[in-house]
């Protein structure tokens, strides 16, 4: 299996704090990789590095064999890396469909001048963007909410919308940052089935940060464990479950390994 995403000795410092240190991992095409670790382990920082929100202090990142460290987030998104955020970051004032269209639009080539003068080509782009977004929303049972303000949606619908928005980018790699945050165990298991379906339907590779251990164990093909910005363990879910270092890292914090 080829590595879709690979990091080599990735490091990120914030002043005196080393959020990620010398991290080398790879994500294989088509797999679901779980990333776990106590709070502050650097998991979201890792996502931010992968999506280009800030550059690494040192080290390299490769996506589909090409280096992406230091590229703008919009460029990385266009190359096929999409994400959701730990605290939902929807465009709250905009409508549901506008949220999706914004992501979809990055696939369209429509020049600013065309937009300003509303050329026929710009009109076609608009139409395509609407139709594709409606189709996507319908798939996720959000179609009827298309014109609602995104900020007015229920929590669950917002989480779903964030995923739909990410999928509108037609990504190869989907990074999910705690998608089950704030959900009770049964909701989390529903999300697990949902994500499995999304994984298959859209032929994705998924990297998943989560604290709901049952969910991570059930979904992931492999798991990487971070603590203090460093990889402390990795492997199949069963291997990781019994790893003493991992248990130690979690001792005293929420999230018992089942």
């Amino acid at each position, binding site marked *: 299996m080829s590595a879709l995403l690979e990091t080599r000795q990735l490091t990120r410092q*914030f*002043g005196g704090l080393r*959020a990620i240190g010398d991290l080398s991992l790879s994500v294989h095409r088509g797999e679901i990789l779980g990333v776990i670790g106590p709070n502050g382990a650097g998991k*979201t*920082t890792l996502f*931010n590095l992968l999506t280009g*929100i*800030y550059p690494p202090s040192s080290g390299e990142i490769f996506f589909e064999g090409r280096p992406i460290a230091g590229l703008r987030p919009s460029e990385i998104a266009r190359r096929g890396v999409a994400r959701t955020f730990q605290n939902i970051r929807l465009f709250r004032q905009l409508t549901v469909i506008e949220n999706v269209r914004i992501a979809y639009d990055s696939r369209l080539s429509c020049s600013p001048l065309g937009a300003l003068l509303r050329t026929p080509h710009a009109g076609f782009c608009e139409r395509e963007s609407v139709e594709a977004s409606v189709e996507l929303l319908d798939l996720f049972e959000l179609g009827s909410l298309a014109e609602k303000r995104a900020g007015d949606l229920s929590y669950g619908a917002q989480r779903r919308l964030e995923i739909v928005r990410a999928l509108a980018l037609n990504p190869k790699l989907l990074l999910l940052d705690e998608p089950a945050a704030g959900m009770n165990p049964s909701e989390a298991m529903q999300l697990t089935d949902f994500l499995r379906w999304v994984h298959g339907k859209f032929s994705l590779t998924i990297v998943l940060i989560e604290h709901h251990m049952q969910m991570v164990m059930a979904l992931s093909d492999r798991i990487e464990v971070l603590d203090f910005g460093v990889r402390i363990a990795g492997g199949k879910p069963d291997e990781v479950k019994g790893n003493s270092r991992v248990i130690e890292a979690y001792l005293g914090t929420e999230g018992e390994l089942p």
Partner: protein
Amino acid sequence: MKYLAQQAINALQLGSIYALIALGYSMVYGVLTMINFAHGDVFMLGAFFCLLLVALVPVPFWLALIVVMAATALLGTLIERFAYRPLRKAPRVSAIITALGCGLVIQNTTLGISPYARPMPRLLENATYQLGGITITMLQIVIIGVSLGLMLALDFLIRKTSFGMAMRAIASDRAMVSLLGIPANEIIAITFAIGAALGGAAGLLYGMAYPVISASMGITVGWKAFVAAVIGGIGNMRGAVLGAFILGSVEVMTVAVLPSTYRDLISYSLLLLILVFKPHGLLGKPALHKA
């Protein structure tokens, strides 16, 4: 050489006044992260308060200074209480716009009351001294001395008193501070008062140095001090003083070499130039935050 020394004293004088005003901008930015656009007009009112006071009751210099500082301190507190405090939780844009609006209201009200520039009556006998061929006036000594004194007092206040510590704490993490039982609102109000008092003092001193004052001074002079604060790194006290003396020197040099109409052009261009290369000012530090 003598000419340079003479200009240096002029720069020192202008820089001192700018520094007093700039400190007000930086203090407020430090505790509230907002640009108090109205501060320049508080400075302007300092000069006008002095004018008003001296017209009613002839008082000696030091008394005028105290009264004016008290008056502007009160004004600063009022503005904070009624225009800024309600907007603490609002987006920053609202606060800046309100500040701009307040400043313009103050300026144009003053303009309405006093449409023409006014001369400032003498508060001090202006003796001149000769020091190795350089002329220095009593006025310049007073201005530089008083400014320096006030700056040192402020420095002491910030670094050695518990109030100063509270102020610095608020600048670091406002939410946390109230959880620790520190009365954030009161500290902020006092910070405004002190900043405004310094601005008022600057207004009085400015009026004495360049004895024609007008309502548009808030923008023409007050905003220069703002430029100085930004050049030094807004929010940073040392930066405010540094920026003030840099700007003062640049302006004095500009006026010596070019026609005076170039002054604003050079000052604001300097600001832009510095912001391009050092977006947070000379001594400013960008806020490091994890997304």
